[in-house]
């Protein structure tokens, strides 16, 4: 009897002790998590504000016309500079790369999740994870040493071209699109596939009548994420696209993108000059576009059905 009582108080004490120390832990954990979140938000805000301030100066301090900046193609570092050819170049590389990478990426995602499951998971998945991690400069190097000469010899021109950019960036975003698409397809519940087979559909019919439509919002998200990566890519593009200012007339022409011009021109400008300020405006444009991509992704993935 006495014993029981004693052990009860003991238990009580134990509980209490545990309780207070876990409470302390909880507080510490909370503080850690909250401050991490705060830092992320502050950093994002700071970058946005800083870039906004720097980028907008061009139009207020140097009196460059926004319209002129966005629509003309003469880039000479003065108040009359227009960035349209780089904006065009960035969008062209992005869409062309997506044109290559989206069908290939979704195709291989289907292959590794629905057709050759074992092989896909043992071989393809690790390969893709490795590809995601390869730094872009390596893609650029391979582009310069393999793709560019190949294009020069077989397609004509210098080899440095939109086409080279499309291939290099396309291959670069392929693993991103593949792995996100594969996750999306894996998330489709087995029971709706069973329903399809149970109604007499073949594997292909099940893939294109059930699996792809059900995964579509996530597949779109994968493509847009790949495009966002392509849009922001600098190094690999810069190494193969030629960096010629002016609108390309064909896909085999040289071109330039927002990112490649920023990295190439920045060292040659003096701080506070118009030219320098114009580059900040290009950066601001890139930032705005990345917000646009995020909004598109939000919108598309909110339409998920399963």
């Amino acid at each position, binding site marked *: 009897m006495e014993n029981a009582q004693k052990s009860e108080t003991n238990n009580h004490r134990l509980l209490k002790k545990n309780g207070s120390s876990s409470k302390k832990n909880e507080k510490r954990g909370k503080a850690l998590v909250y401050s991490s979140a705060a830092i992320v938000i502050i950093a994002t805000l700071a970058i946005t504000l800083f870039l906004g301030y720097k980028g907008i100066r061009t139009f207020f301090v140097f009196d460059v016309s926004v319209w002129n900046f966005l629509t003309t193609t003469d880039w000479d570092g003065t108040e009359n500079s227009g960035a349209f050819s780089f904006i065009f170049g960035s969008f062209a590389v992005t869409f062309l790369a997506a044109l290559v990478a989206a069908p290939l990426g979704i195709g291989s995602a289907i292959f590794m999740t629905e057709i050759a499951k074992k092989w896909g998971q043992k071989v393809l998945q690790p390969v893709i994870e490795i590809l995601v991690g390869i730094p872009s400069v390596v893609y650029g190097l391979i582009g310069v040493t393999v793709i560019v000469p190949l294009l020069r010899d077989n397609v004509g021109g210098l080899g440095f071209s939109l086409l080279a950019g499309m291939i290099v960036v396309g291959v670069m975003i392929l693993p991103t699109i593949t792995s996100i698409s594969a996750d999306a397809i894996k998330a489709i*519940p087995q*029971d*709706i596939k*069973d*329903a*399809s*087979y*149970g*109604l*007499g*559909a*073949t594997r292909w*019919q099940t893939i294109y*009548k*059930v699996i792809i*439509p*059900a995964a579509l919002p996530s597949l779109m998200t994968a493509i847009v994420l790949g495009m966002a990566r392509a849009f922001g890519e600098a190094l690999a593009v810069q190494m193969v696209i030629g960096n010629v200012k002016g609108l390309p007339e064909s896909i085999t022409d040289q071109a330039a993108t927002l990112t490649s011009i920023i990295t190439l021109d920045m060292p040659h400008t003096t701080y506070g000059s118009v030219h320098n300020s114009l580059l900040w405006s290009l950066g601001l444009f890139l930032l705005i576009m990345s917000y646009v991509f995020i909004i598109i992704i939000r919108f598309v993935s909110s339409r998920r*059905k*399963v």
Partner: protein
Amino acid sequence: MEKHSYEVENLNLWYGSSQALHEVKMDIPSNQVTAIIGPSGCGKSTFLKALNRMVEMVPGVKVAGNIKYNGDDILSSKYHPEELRTKVGMVFQHPNPFPKSIYDNVAFGARVKGIRKKAVLDEMVEKSLKRAAIWDEVKDRLNKNAMGLSGGQQQRICIARAIANEPDVVLMDEPTSALDPISTLRVEELIQQLKEHYTIVVVTHNMQQASRISDRTAFFLNGEIIEYDNTDQIFSNPRDRRTEDYISGRFG
């Protein structure tokens, strides 16, 4: 002589090295409701999925024996499982509508078969939904997503989807186990009406349900058929001790 939709003989089935069905022999009469009962893991679903060859999609499965469907040997390599599955529909334990409109769900099988004409599809969708006793509830929202319906409604959509294929057999694996009592009753009534047009095989854990809706009942245990007879006979006067124990709730 009574017509049989299925004649199954010496059916053995293995998942890898473990045998799930042993020498199953069973004739399934046409236009009747056949119930399959037995404790969990005794092979009911496996048997049902062998009847439309869905079981073959499990990796490492091996099937041996004889399954005749309307006289044809469906285990022969010449027989296409897709063709079989358009004639033998299946309804699953959990309602599994596609994340598509009600209309597209019901029209799915026909579209798979290549039917494109809108008038034909319209008529077929309406007829199937009426047969599945859900037309009145959904006729004004055929273009709404089927996932937005209640579980019981979804299951009747799945039944409509299965019968839209104009099968002659409908296999149902515990079709009411995820439903509330009222939806269950509606599905049971539906099964009774459907047997006029279709042969129905229904797996159930619910003894009352089996005795209410079926004409014949098979009792499975450990992958074997212990007893297969008229439902009245099984429930009033079972021949085998194990059947009696099971239906009176003494095990399983």
